[in-house]
């Protein structure tokens, strides 16, 4: 398995043995590095900070000119509005968040359940035209979704999948499957086939050998792959906005986008909804950060 970032990057700057002049040059450089990184961090993080600030400001502070950075009243009303409708009961936004959870979760599970065995098969067996098949599978990811959204829309209308969660689940699973197969194949390749051979000699069938010996070793890889798939499904916008229309089916990204565009825009609500929307992805990415790096750098280090 690929190394994590902590192992890949050498521990800190080189100490002691360099002559003083070099060392001061090194310190000067590191000051510059820190300064540049700080500037970059501010630029990159400013929109995020602004979003979080807006989500906890009173409406009059949101529209204040000049903008108030520090001396504003903190309020949680916008977050309440995200989940609770103005007349009481559940808001449309909260329904869309629930839809997002269902659609992203189900499509990820589907892609994983189909993709992991496929990856195993491609890794272990001599399949006719294996490379061509794998390339074909990957090639379905070459097109941007927006290219196929109209044909998909027409097909979905014919079979009655328009404006259904099942429709979104299927299209997300289809989009995630090639990625799952490719990434998992890398992980399966790293697990020696000998474990399965040995288990088969010990009396297990090939599938039992896979389930009992290879699968447990693949769990980190599966987690990383599933998180990638989950993040894609969670964030997906184009299919969601074209293929769904009603509030009970719509997922969060088009629902949040739908908040913008009326005569007045409740920016506080938009910001709060966005914060709620971003949190799960952050949490998941944090949980599997090691494996995410492993997934990204997979194949960079050969055994």
């Amino acid at each position, binding site marked *: 398995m690929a190394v994590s970032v902590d192992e890949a990057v050498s521990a800190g700057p080189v100490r002691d043995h360099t002559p003083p002049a070099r060392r001061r040059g090194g310190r000067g450089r590191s000051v510059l590095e820190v300064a540049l990184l700080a500037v970059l961090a501010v630029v990159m993080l400013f929109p995020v900070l602004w979003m979080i600030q807006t989500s906890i400001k009173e409406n009059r502070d949101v529209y204040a000119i000049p903008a108030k950075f520090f001396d504003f009243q903190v309020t949680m009303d916008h977050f309440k509005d995200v989940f609770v409708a103005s007349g009481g009961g559940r808001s449309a936004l909260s329904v869309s968040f629930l839809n997002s959870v269902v659609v992203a979760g189900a499509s990820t599970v589907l892609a994983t359940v189909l993709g992991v065995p496929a990856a195993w098969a491609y890794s272990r067996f*001599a*399949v*006719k*035209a*294996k490379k061509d098949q794998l390339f074909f599978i990957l090639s379905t990811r070459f097109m941007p979704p927006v290219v196929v959204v109209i044909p998909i829309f027409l097909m979905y209308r014919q079979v009655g999948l328009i404006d259904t969660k099942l429709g979104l689940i299927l299209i997300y699973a289809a989009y995630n499957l090639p990625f799952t197969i490719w990434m998992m194949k890398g992980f399966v390749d790293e697990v*020696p086939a*000998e*474990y399965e*051979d*040995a288990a*088969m*000699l*010990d*009396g*297990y*069938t090939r599938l039992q050998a896979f389930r009992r*010996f290879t699968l*447990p*070793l693949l769990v980190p890889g599966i987690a990383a792959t599933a998180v990638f798939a989950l993040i894609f499904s969670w964030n997906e916008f184009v299919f969601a906005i074209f293929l769904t229309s009603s509030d009970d089916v719509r997922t969060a990204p088009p629902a949040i986008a739908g908040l913008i565009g009326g005569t007045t825009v409740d920016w506080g609500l938009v910001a709060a909804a966005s914060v709620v929307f971003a949190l799960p992805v952050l949490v998941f990415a944090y949980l599997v950060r090691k494996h995410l790096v492993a997934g990204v750098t997979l194949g960079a280090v050969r055994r």
Partner: protein
Amino acid sequence: MAGIEVSALHKRYPDGTVAVDHVDLSIGDGELFVMLGPSGCGKTTTLRAIAGLERQTTGDIRIGNTLVNDLPPAERDIAMVFQFYALYPHLRTRDNLAFPLRAEGLPKAEVRERVDEVARLMRLAPLLDRRPRRLSGGEQQRVALARALVRRPQAFLMDEPLTNLDAELRADMRTEIKHLQGELGTTMVYVTHDQVEAMSLGHRIAILNKGRVEQIGTPLEVYERPASLFCAAFIGSPPINLIEVEVADGKLRSQGGLVLTPPPGLPRDRCLVAGVRPEALEVTEPGAERSVPARVASAEWLGDEIIYVVDHGGQRDVRVRMPPTGRFAADAAVGLRHTGGTPAVYDVSTEELVA
């Protein structure tokens, strides 16, 4: 215990690669049989077909008197040791050893007894409570061997088991495997690409090339009379000298005038090559009796012997193995003399042994 019969084995993968073209083997009961060849020669595929991990396209495999073509690996009563050991990473040594027995459903007491017995035999007692990642390469391979032994199978299949060990450990393990096989008397099929391993271990050696058997014989036979040019070049280090010769006056003569004793029944009018081992030649003072003029291209002094590379009469890079006495410098004019017996002679066009 049982012998293994492989007849007309052919394995073609769905993607069209032919891994094994045609292999016939007859492995005796209690024999240590080595399959030797370069990578891609089909030796591992043949072994995996015997194990049941690959299904051959055509051909039959018998273990003992049983036709095992359609039996899954577990029902063939064989044990296999792999290059990467394949110890289950989540199990301690003790459980790794017990695993195949538990899979068979043996009672607990007997499992413990047999694990202890094999641990004693392989001197694994201090390692029983460790997991594979806390074992060195050599220890892992001993455990892997023990896991094969513990089942008391009809035959052992070894797939390059020593390749991942360092040189010193490899020599030790080689001795240990040979000793164990002798003690137990169990049939063993051993796959390797290392000719030293093959020569030192095997009762008989099969040399495979491009999915076919080139030669089967004892280590001595394989060394002394390689059946083809491929075998001749594959066995021996430094490699055999292949010297173009022609028959004249009842003798074999090389272009440079080197005279060799011809084997009986040599065909005429064919392009012939004589295989002369480096130790069947001798570098002498120039003009010595029966010697032909030659020039030393380089000399490798290895302590216990010297390998001279000499050019003579248009033939370049003739290797000569000499005792470390008597030094000739590089570029020196010397004599070259054949001191061995009758060489093996090959037909250039068929690459087969002719006499």
